[in-house]
């Protein structure tokens, strides 16, 4: 008790102490100066440290962004949080959430027209953060629909395709998936083996190949598939469920993102009408444009998961008493929380800046790589630390943290692994590529 009082006296009086030492050094004119300073110090109100928002991110958001964030946060906490425990435990995908999110207008939020909200990228980031605070699987579903299905159709599709698909995707009436990764080609999509052959007589493309690790595919109504054409260029095609030769088996035995359904896209000579080609892009710029869009959302989202873990661990260590004191009384615990707070705060500030730059069209892909890599890596570390702080209870899904730990393993890996983004940055820093062994 005496120690605590002495400590608090030290902290409160540190300001006064420094003033006194300054005035002593200056001699007899000092007392007057000291009075002045003390009066000034008393007038400016003390700004409290807010561990929930240490660098006042809130103050940098517009009123509209705050309203969007608040409204969607309420939905996530009231409607998604109650479902996630069982959904994750039983690996059940709640298809209805797409319709619910569609009603709220949060699918494809940055798209103008076609039933979409047309809001800022910062708002998109805030939305992703709120969903991922509940579960990364739900956020993956939302990211795929918004950035990997609606975005390519909007950016690279014909007007007819946009009219046909976008409003229904925005409402969550139809579910889409994005087929780029193959069993033998993950980090090097350029080496893909899926082929598209043009048939001039029927004006169709015949597509054959296999895609894997495709979020939503078992339940998807449409698939945006990237295939190599005869000229060696990669192009995007919209495949629809029911086309002959198209099947989407589920991947079993997944221990991450269990609340979202992941599967393969198997194409055995699927005939796709040429109207389903996305004509306004060719080459890897197409899929990469979509991935960058999604990666930006993930940069925000991962920090939402990290925030949940940090807050949960804080509450747990405040409540749990061992050796007569709360766990939070211990130095090792406090150090861990200090690290979590710092990384989350700094991460969010950088995401906000990136969002603003994107809205001003002053961004480039390396910025997004940097933040996706940072947010995911740091969030995974925070989740693991938080799990540790909960001890044995930390491995029970009732406490939710272990679910985030498992999810973030996938989040750190997909959309460009931690290491691949490092290579992207390395190339930008040095001008030398280190992806391949050759020159």
């Amino acid at each position, binding site marked *: 008790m005496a120690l605590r009082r002495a400590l608090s006296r030290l902290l409160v009086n540190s300001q006064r102490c420094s003033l006194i030492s300054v005035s002593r050094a200056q001699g007899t004119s000092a007392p007057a100066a000291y009075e002045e300073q003390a009066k000034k110090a008393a007038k400016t109100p003390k700004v*409290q440290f807010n561990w929930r928002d240490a660098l006042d991110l809130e103050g940098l958001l517009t*009123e*509209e962004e705050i*309203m*969007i964030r608040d*409204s*969607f946060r*309420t*939905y996530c906490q009231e409607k998604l949080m109650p479902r996630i425990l069982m959904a994750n435990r039983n690996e059940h995908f709640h298809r209805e959430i797409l319709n619910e999110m569609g*009603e*709220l*207008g*949060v699918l494809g*939020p940055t798209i103008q027209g076609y039933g979409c*909200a*047309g*809001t800022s990228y910062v*708002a998109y980031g805030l939305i992703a953060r709120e969903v991922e605070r509940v579960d990364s699987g739900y956020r993956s579903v939302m990211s795929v629909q918004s950035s990997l299905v609606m975005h390519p159709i909007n950016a690279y599709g014909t007007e007819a395709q946009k009219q046909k698909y976008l409003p229904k995707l925005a409402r969550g009436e139809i579910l889409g998936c994005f087929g780029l990764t193959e069993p033998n080609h993950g980090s090097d999509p350029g080496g893909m083996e899926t082929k598209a052959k043009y048939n001039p007589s029927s004006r169709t493309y015949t597509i054959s190949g296999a895609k894997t690790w495709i979020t939503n595919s078992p339940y998807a109504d449409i698939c945006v598939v990237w295939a190599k054409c005869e000229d060696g260029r990669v192009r995007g095609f919209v495949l629809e469920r029911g086309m002959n030769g198209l099947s989407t088996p589920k991947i079993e035995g997944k221990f991450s993102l269990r609340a979202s359904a992941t599967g393969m896209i198997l194409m055995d000579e699927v005939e796709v009408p040429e109207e389903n080609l996305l004509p306004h892009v060719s080459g890897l710029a197409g899929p990469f444009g979509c991935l960058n869009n999604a990666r930006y959302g993930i940069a925000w989202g991962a920090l939402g998961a990290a925030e949940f873990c940090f807050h949960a661990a804080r509450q747990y260590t405040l409540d749990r008493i061992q050796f007569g004191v709360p766990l939070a009384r211990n130095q090792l615990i406090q150090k861990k929380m200090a690290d979590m707070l710092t990384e989350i705060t700094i991460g969010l500030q950088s995401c906000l800046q990136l969002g603003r730059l994107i809205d001003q069209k002053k961004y480039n892909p390396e910025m997004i790589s940097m933040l996706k890599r940072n947010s995911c890596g740091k969030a995974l570390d925070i989740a693991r630390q938080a799990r540790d702080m909960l001890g044995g209870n930390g491995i029970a899904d009732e406490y939710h943290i272990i679910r985030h730990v498992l999810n973030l393993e996938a989040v750190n890996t997909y959309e460009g692994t931690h290491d691949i983004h490092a290579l992207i940055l390395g190339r930008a820093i040095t001008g030398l590529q280190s992806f391949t062994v050759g020159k």
Partner: protein
Amino acid sequence: MSARVLVGVKRVIDYAVKIRVKPDRTGVVTDGVKHSMNPFCEIAVEEAVKLKEKKLVKEVVAVSCGPQQVQETIRTALAMGADRGIHVEVSGKDYETLGPLQVSKILAALAKKEQADLIILGKQAIDDDCNQTGQMTAALLDWPQRSPEDGTFASEVNIEADKLKVVREIDGGLETIKINLPAVVTADLRLNTPRYATLPNIMKAKKKKIANVKPADLGVDVSSRLEVLKVDEPPQRQAGVKVETVHDLVGKLKEAGRI
């Protein structure tokens, strides 16, 4: 139907916040504390917007009295579907002493000015729990007033041929009442479930107008006839005493002079 509905919305400390009394005991701490729309007012807005969607009402106007910050609350109402807002500027000392009597005078004046046919208010505010504004407003306007109480099966408010039809749950079952318009309705908890403001509506809300008005413009004097002497925390719960038998219990009660 060309009816216009006035909905009162109050900015209060968020229901989830732990309230702390100010050190000088003149009130509670509000600086830097999260505020939001009074939950009963949310239900009132939802009901008004529902009536508009059923095409029974033409325009929904959201009103709030207070300083600059209440505009956030009006914007939330606009994001839920209200058409325009009115911000009655009351600040400083006047705002601290603003109570149901002054608010109802303001609402009555506005109802006449805007030619409102229906006023929907929350039953009470979660900060003062007065449950008076609706009744006072009705009395000042000499309009009928009704509270549709909760209803597990959608208690309803409907407009039929210039009358307000209200269904409420009572002990013996459901009661259906028809009252003449114009009227005042106060919303209780189970009247409806307020919608989440959708993104497109939040963005549309930016363009909707909020008019600024001063109480003096409406001829209302906001000075209070009440003076708050002291605000205290509820007394700390004292530990109880366990007794072994009923005999002991009776003995203890007699000791305490209770029986």
